[in-house]
């Protein structure tokens, strides 16, 4: 009886040993078994759908039935990059400018907060601040958007404060300014966290050494702090820039006034009617992000992630 159990355990162990020996003899097999499934999913689900998306941008749509016609042509891209009708140039330009403005705003807001959290705050306060930064992410995006609509409306909290202070009321609802405010608010946590990580990694000794060598606070900030934090900024900007570039809910609910259309909302408007055109327009932010990531890689952002 005891022998049987031992033998069985032995055969199980033997099988395990044989498998692990096979893996040892063929290192490529081990690698394939380990990496295969995630790479497969990545290739098929992610790259595959992206390829189909890009390919469908070259298709057309039957104007009568609005069904997709699978003939290759550049019509959609000609419409987007038309030299006579600048509508889409304007929309793309506005979207990129908005993404850039939001990124800069978030960087300026995130740095002091992240610095305080990383270097000055006691552990308990730091934990509290972390929760405060992340708390908005726990509530629904839509709830936050609608709260902003109420705040920015003609009879909202913002104007209540402004008129209370004797300042003129603002009519921000529906404008690009409103979108800039809301985007900056919504994506701020995505900037704070990587900047915090970058600041936290700077050894105190660097700053002390800078001081010992006679640098004042400003010089230490410019020559030591900023270069070391830059990858954190770039990493954060990847989020804020990309998320602003593709969003369509904020343009629809916070924007919506004349001259506030963005790439995301224009894609959304075309999806039901002209899928190839929507796909072609989607290729634009993909290309912009591709260029952006290449630049970000040069600045060493991926080491800071």
């Amino acid at each position, binding site marked *: 009886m005891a022998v049987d159990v031992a033998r069985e355990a032995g055969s199980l162990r033997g099988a395990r040993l044989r498998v692990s020996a096979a893996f040892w003899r063929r290192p490529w097999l081990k690698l394939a078994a380990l990496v295969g499934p995630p790479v497969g999913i990545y290739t098929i689900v992610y790259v595959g759908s992206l390829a*189909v998306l890009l390919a469908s941008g070259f298709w057309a749509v039957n104007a009568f039935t609005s069904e997709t016609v699978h003939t290759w042509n550049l019509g959609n891209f000609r419409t987007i990059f038309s030299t006579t*009708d600048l509508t889409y140039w304007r929309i793309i330009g506005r979207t990129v400018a908005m993404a850039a403005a939001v990124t800069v705003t978030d960087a300026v807001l995130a740095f002091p907060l992240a610095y305080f959290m990383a270097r000055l705050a006691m552990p308990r306060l730091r934990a509290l601040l972390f929760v405060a930064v992340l708390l908005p992410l726990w509530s629904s995006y839509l709830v936050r958007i609608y709260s902003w609509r109420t705040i920015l409306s003609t009879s909202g909290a913002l104007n209540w404060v402004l008129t209370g202070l004797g300042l003129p009321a603002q009519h921000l609802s529906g404008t690009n300014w409103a979108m800039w405010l809301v985007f900056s608010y919504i994506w701020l946590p995505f900037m704070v966290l990587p900047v915090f990580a970058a600041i936290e990694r700077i050894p105190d000794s660097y700053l002390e050494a800078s001081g010992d060598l006679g640098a004042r606070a400003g010089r230490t900030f410019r020559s030591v702090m900023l270069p070391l934090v830059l990858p954190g900024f770039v990493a954060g900007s990847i989020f804020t820039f990309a998320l602003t570039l593709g969003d369509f809910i904020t343009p629809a609910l916070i924007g919506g006034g004349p001259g506030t259309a963005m790439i995301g909302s224009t894609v959304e408007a075309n999806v039901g009617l002209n899928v190839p055109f929507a796909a072609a327009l989607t290729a634009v932010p993909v290309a912009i992000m591709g260029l952006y990531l290449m630049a970000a890689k040069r600045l060493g952002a991926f080491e800071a992630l």
Partner: protein
Amino acid sequence: MRWLTRRRAIGALAAAGLLAALVVPATSIGSGSAAFSPPTKIGKGEGSLNVIEWPAYTDPSFAKPFEKATGCTIHRKDAGSSNQMVALMRAGGGGGGGQYDLVSASGDASLRLIYGKDVVPINVNLLPGWKQFFPYFKSPAHNTVNGVHYGISLQWGPNTLIYNTKKVKPAPTSWSVVYGKKYAGKISIPNNPIQIADAALYLMKTKPALGIRDPYELTKGQFDAAVALLKRQKPLVKRYWNYAADQITDFKNGDVTVGSTWPYQTLTLQASKLSVKDLIPREGTTGWADTWMLAAKAPHPNCAYMWMKYVTMPKVEAQQAIVFGETPVTPLACPYMNKLQAGSCAQYHLNAPAAYLKSIHFWKVPIADCGWGGRKDCVDFTAWQQAWTQITG
């Protein structure tokens, strides 16, 4: 990314291309079916019914009794726009993708679904309510092509001119109030390409020289005139609203004081004690009319027919009209409406004379075939969409 050498990158691209090639043919299957003949009787229910609907179009208040009586459990997919409805029907190879049975398409979507072969003809003789419809709604142009019925009319409503009675004085009587400078920055307009028809209708009455016959069937010149009018309107607009709730919020917040709306928003705002009124201006107006349409690949056709039969009964029509704030397609619903809410039959213009119905130009998808004068060079909806992007962007 350094591991991705150029040769490997090319390999990855080739693999992706191969994948695309495999996927592409699969999506093109499903067109070119032979003549379709609708059923002659409703069979046994399949126990389930999947609908793409405007929110509350299968409101439990009248859907629950249906589910109990037929055993067809309703699964709902709420749509936010006509474009989204078409996209949902087109997903999974079209025709509802074998997933959806019914769609409550509005007039700016229904012809697209018909010509895209996403919906199939239905047998209206299986739906007793149909015989009692207003004549217009038995075979309207937005759901009946060459005498073939692609669905059953459901409910309708006008696009009305709404205004805040405290801020807009004197009370407007013409659409000119949303094209003029007096209320600049306080105007609320739907974010929908079909809005071009509203401009065309206004021009039809104010600029007869353009020779506009039908606001949905515009030649290039007429279309350009309508687009130019909307471009002049653009700086006056506060917001192009996407959802009814958006417009309601804007009126409540005081961001807008006048605009184009549906009766639903007016009634909701009045219920919350805001001093708004709406009217059909002297130029007439556009309107929407919805149709329950049967998906080409409906997995539960019998339950779908049972639902179409049920919702077109006068009593259920009345219930839905009150829930959503719209008007039934059958005059027999009037007493039921009044029973549910005193005076509602008149409030929703169900008892209005035929002239009222005539003053409403119902949404239909613009196509190249003008439908008048034998002309085939009218501007189609794809161009409407592009022009709308130009106007608002």
